[in-house]
C-alpha cells in the first residue's frame, strides 16, 4: 500500500476515534467552545487530507459534516438529533475507510442521502428527512446572552481564527511529511489539551522485538552477575556493575515505550454507551476513573473487547428502564462506572453499575437446565458461587435476545480472553443494587524484582513488591513462633501475624509442624499481612516473568515462572494465592473442597481476622485480631485487688484488668488468659476464660445489641458469636482513655461527618470519635453524606470509608472537591486496603489523609492534624 495512504488511514482512524468521544462530550456541554473547536478542526483536517489524496467521496461527506459543525460554531443550537446525524456521517466515513484499507481504493457509491440530511440540518430544518422549506437562513440567529462560564461567539471566533488553519500535507515531502503535518495541526488545535507532540511512529513489531531482546539481556546480565558472585573478587566486577546499571535503565526505558494509558481502551465506550442508551431507551451515565493508569500495550489490546462487552452487558442487562428505576427508588439515570488502578503488581479494573444486579435464582435455574450442576450441588452453594456460573459457557440470563447481548456468547468469552493473559475476573452483585466485575490482570510480561527463597530443598521466587520485611527466627531470638490453638502466629512489634509454612502449603514436606527456626517473609496483600515461613533466603534478583504453562495455571500458588541467572527454572509464588490459603487455613476445620472454594471466593471481600474466645458464657465472643496487642497467660496469684479493681504488674507498669461482663469470673488459681489492648503507652487486660481460635471471616453483624460492650452478633464459623466492642472497655480501665489525647484541642466540639457502609465500623468507630471530642454524625451511604452537605449542614471534617457500594469514597471526595462552597473541607479516607497506589489515588481526588481502618490511633492523630490546620487557617 502507498506509504502516504497508510499514514492517512492511521492518522484518520485516530482522529475519528477522538471525534467520537468529543462529540458525545459536546452534546452534553454544547457551550464548551474548546470541544467544538476540537471537533470542527478534526473533521476539517480529514476533509483537507482527503482532498489532497483525491478521495472525492470521502471529501464530500466530510465537507457536509463540517458544514453542519460550522453551523454549530455559528451558534445553531445543538440537538441530540444533529449529533446523531454527525455521528452517522462519521460511521459512514469509517466504513469507507475500512473499504479503502482493504482494497486500496475508494469504494464506488453515493452518499447523497446522508449529505442531503446533513445539508438540511445545516440549513436549520427541524427534522432531517422532512421536506420542509428551509427557514430564511441568511439572517444570523440573534445573539444569545452569554451565561456565566460560557464563551461568547466573538471570543470563540477569535480563538478559532488564532488557531492556524489546516495545512494540507506538503507535496514536496511526499511520503514522510504528510502525517507529521497533520499531526502538528492537530497538536496546535488541541494546544490547551496537550503540548505539541514530539513523537514518531514506531512499528509495534519493532517494539516487541526490542522487549524480547531486553529480556534476554537481563537474563544474560543475571548469569554474569551470578558467575562473578561465585568467583568473589574479580576484575569484571566494576564494568559488570556498570553494564548492570545500563541494562536496568534500558529495560526501564523499553518498558515505558510499551505502556499506554488504559483510557485508550476506553475511548470508544462513551460513544457505545450513548448509542446504547438511545437504542434501549435508558438514560445512562458513564463514569471513568483512572483512565491514565498505564499498562502494557499487549495486555491493553487483549482487554479492550472484554471491557466493551462488560459495559454493553451492564447497559443491556444490568440497568433498568427509567420507569423501573424510579419505582425502585433509584435515580432515573443509571450509572456505569469504570475504574482502573494498580495494586501490588496487578492492574485492577472494576466495571460496575447500579442496576438490578444478578438474579441468582435465574442463574441457578439456567445452570440446572444447562446441566452445569445438579440440584444437590446447587443447594450446597453460596450465592457468590452460584453467581460465578455466569462465566460458564452458554449461560445468558437475558430472557429475550436483544441486538446488544443475550446471544449466549457472553461472560465465558470474557473470561477466556482474560485467562489467556493470566488474568482473573470476579463478580460481586447485590440484588437490586447493582453489579460489579473486578478484573485483575498480572503484569505477565513485566520484569520484576523477586526474593529467592528456599523451601524443602527447592527454590522459589517471591515478588519483592509484596514483601514487607524478613524476620529470622531461632530458639533464642526475640521473635518466636507461637501457637494459638492450631494456628501459628508471630509477634512482631505488638502485632500478631498469622503464619503459613511454604513447604506445607506446597505439600513438599509431609511435616506440617512449624520449625523452631527459619526465616519469615512478612508479606502484605491488600489489607492482609501474614508471614510465609521458609527454610532459607538467598538474594533478590530481577526476573523476567514468564507465564506458567496452561496445564499448571490452575495452581493458585504460582503466578509464573522464570529462568534464573544460573540457568535453572524456578516458580514464582503468587502472594495472592498464599494469602487466600492463609485465610483458608485460619478457617480450616474439616472443610470439604467446596467449603475451601467458598472461603477463597469470599477472601476478596471484607475479610477480617477475628480472635474468638469465651468469657462468662459458653457462647463464643470475638474481637478483630488487629485490635489485640498481645495474648497473655498470667499466674492468677499475681492478680491484685486495688481500690476494688483488679490489677496486675505488667512490664513494669500497673495494668488494670477488666471483665467482659459481671458473669465472667476472675480465676483464683492456675493461669488466667488475657487479651491485652495497648494504646499510647497504656495497656488494659481483658479477662477471658479461654482463647478459642483465630479465624478469617467476612464480618456481617446480623443482630445489633443494646447491651453495653457488645456490638452485636455475627455468624463466625457457623456459630452465632458476639462481637465485643473494645471501645466500651477501654474507658472502664482508664476513664480518660480517649479524652486525654485531645487535651489542648480546644473546648469547642468539632463536628464530624462519618460515612461507612459497614454497620460494624460505624458502631466501632463512632463511639471512639465521640470520645475523642467530636460531634459525630453517622451515615451509611456516600450519597446521603453528599446530600447532607449540600443541604447546608456544616461539618469541620469528613471521614469516609473508601470501598462502598454505589458511590465510593473516591467519588465522594471528587464530588465534594468539585463544589467550591465546601471549600477545603478536610477529608480523611479510611480503608482496609492501603497500597501506595490507592493512597496516591486518594491524594489525587483530594483526600487529606489516608488511614487504615483499624488504626484508631492514626485516625485520631490525623483528625487532630486536620482540624488544627483548620484552626490556623481560620
Amino acid at each position, binding site marked *: 500500500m502507498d506509504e502516504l495512504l497508510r499514514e492517512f488511514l492511521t492518522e484518520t482512524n485516530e482522529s475519528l476515534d477522538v471525534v467520537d468521544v468529543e462529540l458525545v462530550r459536546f452534546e452534553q456541554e454544547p457551550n464548551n467552545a474548546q470541544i467544538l473547536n476540537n471537533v470542527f478542526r478534526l473533521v476539517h483536517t480529514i476533509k483537507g487530507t482527503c482532498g489532497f489524496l483525491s478521495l472525492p467521496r470521502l471529501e464530500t461527506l466530510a465537507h457536509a459534516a463540517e458544514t453542519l459543525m460550522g453551523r454549530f460554531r455559528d451558534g445553531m443550537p445543538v440537538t441530540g438529533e444533529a449529533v446523531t446525524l454527525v455521528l452517522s456521517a462519521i460511521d459512514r466515513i469509517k466504513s469507507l475507510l475500512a473499504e479503502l484499507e482493504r482494497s486500496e481504493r475508494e469504494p464506488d457509491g453515493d452518499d447523497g442521502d446522508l449529505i442531503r440530511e446533513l445539508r438540511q440540518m445545516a440549513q436549520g430544518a427541524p427534522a432531517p428527512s422532512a421536506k420542509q422549506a428551509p427557514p430564511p437562513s441568511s439572517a444570523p440567529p440573534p445573539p444569545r446572552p452569554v451565561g456565566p462560564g460560557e464563551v461568547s461567539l466573538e471570543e470563540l471566533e477569535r480563538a478559532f481564527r488564532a488557531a492556524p488553519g489546516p495545512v494540507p500535507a506538503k507535496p514536496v515531502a511526499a511520503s514522510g511529511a504528510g502525517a507529521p503535518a497533520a499531526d502538528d495541526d492537530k497538536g496546535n488545535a488541541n494546544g490547551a489539551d496537550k503540548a505539541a507532540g514530539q513523537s514518531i511512529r514506531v512499528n509495534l513489531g519493532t517494539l516487541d522485538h526490542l522487549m524480547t531482546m531486553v529480556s534476554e539481556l537481563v537474563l544474560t546480565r543475571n548469569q554474569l552477575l551470578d558467575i562473578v558472585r561465585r568467583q568473589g573478587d574479580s576484575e569484571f566486577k566494576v564494568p559488570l556493575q556498570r553494564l548492570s546499571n545500563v541494562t536496568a535503565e534500558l529495560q526501564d526505558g523499553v518498558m515505558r515505550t510499551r505502556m499506554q494509558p488504559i483510557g485508550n481502551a476506553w475511548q470508544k465506550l462513551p460513544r457505545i454507551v450513548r448509542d446504547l442508551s438511545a437504542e434501549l431507551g435508558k438514560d445512562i451515565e458513564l463514569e471513568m476513573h483512572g483512565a491514565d493508569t498505564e499498562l502494557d500495550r499487549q495486555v491493553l489490546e487483549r482487554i479492550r473487547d472484554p471491557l466493551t462487552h462488560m459495559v454493553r452487558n451492564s447497559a443491556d442487562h444490568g440497568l433498568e428502564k427509567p420507569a423501573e428505576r424510579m419505582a425502585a427508588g433509584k435515580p432515573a439515570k443509571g450509572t456505569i462506572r469504570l475504574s482502573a488502578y494498580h495494586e501490588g503488581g496487578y492492574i485492577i479494573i472494576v466495571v460496575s453499575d447500579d442496576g438490578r444486579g444478578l438474579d441468582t435464582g435465574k442463574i441457578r435455574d439456567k445452570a440446572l437446565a444447562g446441566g452445569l450442576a445438579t440440584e444437590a450441588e446447587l443447594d450446597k452453594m453460596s450465592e457468590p458461587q452460584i453467581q460465578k456460573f455466569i462465566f460458564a459457557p452458554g449461560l445468558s440470563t437475558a430472557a429475550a435476545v436483544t441486538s446488544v447481548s443475550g446471544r449466549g456468547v457472553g461472560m465465558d468469552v470474557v473470561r477466556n480472553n482474560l485467562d489467556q493473559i493470566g488474568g482473573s475476573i470476579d463478580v460481586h452483585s447485590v440484588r437490586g443494587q447493582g453489579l460489579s466485575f473486578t478484573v485483575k490482570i498480572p503484569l505477565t510480561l513485566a520484569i520484576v524484582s523477586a526474593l529467592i527463597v528456599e523451601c524443602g530443598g527447592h527454590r522459589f521466587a517471591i515478588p519483592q513488591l509484596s514483601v514487607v520485611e524478613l524476620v529470622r527466627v531461632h530458639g533464642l531470638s526475640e521473635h518466636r513462633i507461637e501457637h494459638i490453638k492450631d494456628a501459628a502466629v508471630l509477634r512482631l512489634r505488638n502485632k500478631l501475624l498469622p503464619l503459613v509454612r511454604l513447604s506445607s502449603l506446597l505439600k513438599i514436606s509431609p511435616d506440617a509442624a512449624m520449625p523452631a527456626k527459619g526465616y519469615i517473609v512478612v508479606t502484605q496483600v491488600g489489607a492482609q499481612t501474614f508471614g510465609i515461613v521458609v527454610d532459607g533466603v538467598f538474594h533478590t534478583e530481577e526476573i523476567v516473568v514468564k507465564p506458567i504453562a496452561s496445564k499448571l495455571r490452575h495452581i493458585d500458588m504460582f503466578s509464573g515462572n522464570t529462568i534464573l541467572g544460573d540457568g*535453572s527454572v524456578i516458580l514464582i509464588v503468587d502472594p495472592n494465592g498464599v494469602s487466600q490459603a492463609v485465610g483458608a487455613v485460619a478457617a480450616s476445620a474439616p472443610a470439604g473442597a467446596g467449603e475451601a472454594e467458598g472461603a477463597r471466593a469470599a477472601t476478596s471481600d471484607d475479610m477480617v481476622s477475628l480472635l474468638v474466645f469465651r468469657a462468662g458464657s459458653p457462647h463464643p465472643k470475638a474481637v478483630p485480631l488487629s485490635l489485640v496487642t498481645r495474648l497473655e497467660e498470667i499466674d492468677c496469684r499475681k492478680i491484685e485487688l486495688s481500690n476494688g479493681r483488679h490489677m496486675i504488674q505488667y512490664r513494669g507498669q500497673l495494668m488494670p484488668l477488666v471483665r467482659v461482663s459481671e458473669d465472667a469470673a476472675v480465676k483464683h488459681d492456675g493461669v488466667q488468659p488475657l487479651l491485652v489492648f495497648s494504646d499510647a503507652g497504656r495497656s488494659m487486660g481483658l479477662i477471658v476464660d479461654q482463647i478459642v481460635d483465630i479465624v478469617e471471616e467476612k464480618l456481617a453483624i446480623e443482630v445489633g445489641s443494646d447491651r453495653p460492650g457488645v456490638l452485636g452478633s455475627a455468624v463466625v464459623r457457623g456459630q452465632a458469636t458476639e462481637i465485643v466492642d473494645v471501645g466500651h472497655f477501654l474507658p472502664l480501665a482508664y476513664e480518660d482513655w480517649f479524652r486525654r489525647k485531645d487535651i489542648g484541642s480546644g473546648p469547642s466540639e468539632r463536628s464530624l461527618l462519618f460515612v461507612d457502609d459497614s454497620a460494624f465500623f460505624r458502631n466501632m468507630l463512632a463511639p471512639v470519635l465521640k470520645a475523642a471530642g467530636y460531634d459525630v454524625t453517622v451515615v451509611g451511604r456516600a450519597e446521603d453524606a453528599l446530600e447532607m452537605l449540600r443541604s447546608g449542614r456544616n461539618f469541620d471534617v469528613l471521614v469516609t470509608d473508601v470501598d462502598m457500594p454505589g458511590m465510593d469514597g473516591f467519588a465522594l471526595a471528587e464530588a465534594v472537591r468539585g463544589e467550591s462552597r465546601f471549600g477545603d473541607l478536610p477529608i480523611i479516607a479510611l480503608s482496609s486496603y492501603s497500597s501506595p497506589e490507592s493512597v496516591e489515588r486518594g491524594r489525587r481526588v483530594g483526600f487529606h489523609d489516608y488511614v487504615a481502618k483499624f488504626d484508631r490511633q492514626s485516625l485520631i492523630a490525623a483528625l487532630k492534624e486536620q482540624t488544627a490546620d483548620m484552626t490556623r487557617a481560620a
Partner: protein
Amino acid sequence: MMSAHDTVEAESTEYVTVTVGDQLFGLPIGRVQDVFVPERLTHVPLAPPEVAGMLNLRGRVVTAIDMRCRLDFGRRDASQPMLAIGIEFKGESYGLLIDTVGEVLKLPDSARESKPANLDPRLARVASSIYRLENQLMVVLDVDRVLDMQNGAVAA
C-alpha cells in the same frame, strides 16, 4: 486444524519411534521439534503427577510430562537414563519424557489401521491409530490427547 499425521496427499508419513516401558510408539515427525536429554528438572509442587517438572531448554521454559506416569506404566526408575521429545502445543513448549528413541520410520499411510477395540485402554486414550510392524505393534501417539490432562491419566 489438521495435524500433520492426518495429511492425506502424502502417501507415507515419517514417524519418530520411541519406547516407553516396553511399548513402541510413533510420533509424526512434523510434531517433533527436538530430542534432548532433560537436565535440572524443577519440581512443580501441587502439579498433576504426570508433570515431572520444568526445565530450561535454550532460554525457553519447557514443561516436562512423564510419559510413564501419563500412561499409568508405573514409576520411573530414577537410575534409568531418560530422553525428552520436545513438542509445541498451543504456543507452549512441552517435553515428553520417554525411555529411548529409535530410528525414524517412513511408513505407508495405507498400512495404518484404526485402533482395535481391544487395545489396552491406557494406550487407547492417547493413540490415534496403530501400525502392525514385523514383530511388534507401533502405537501412533496423538500428541494433543497426550497433553489433554482432562483425558484422565489416573482417572478414567
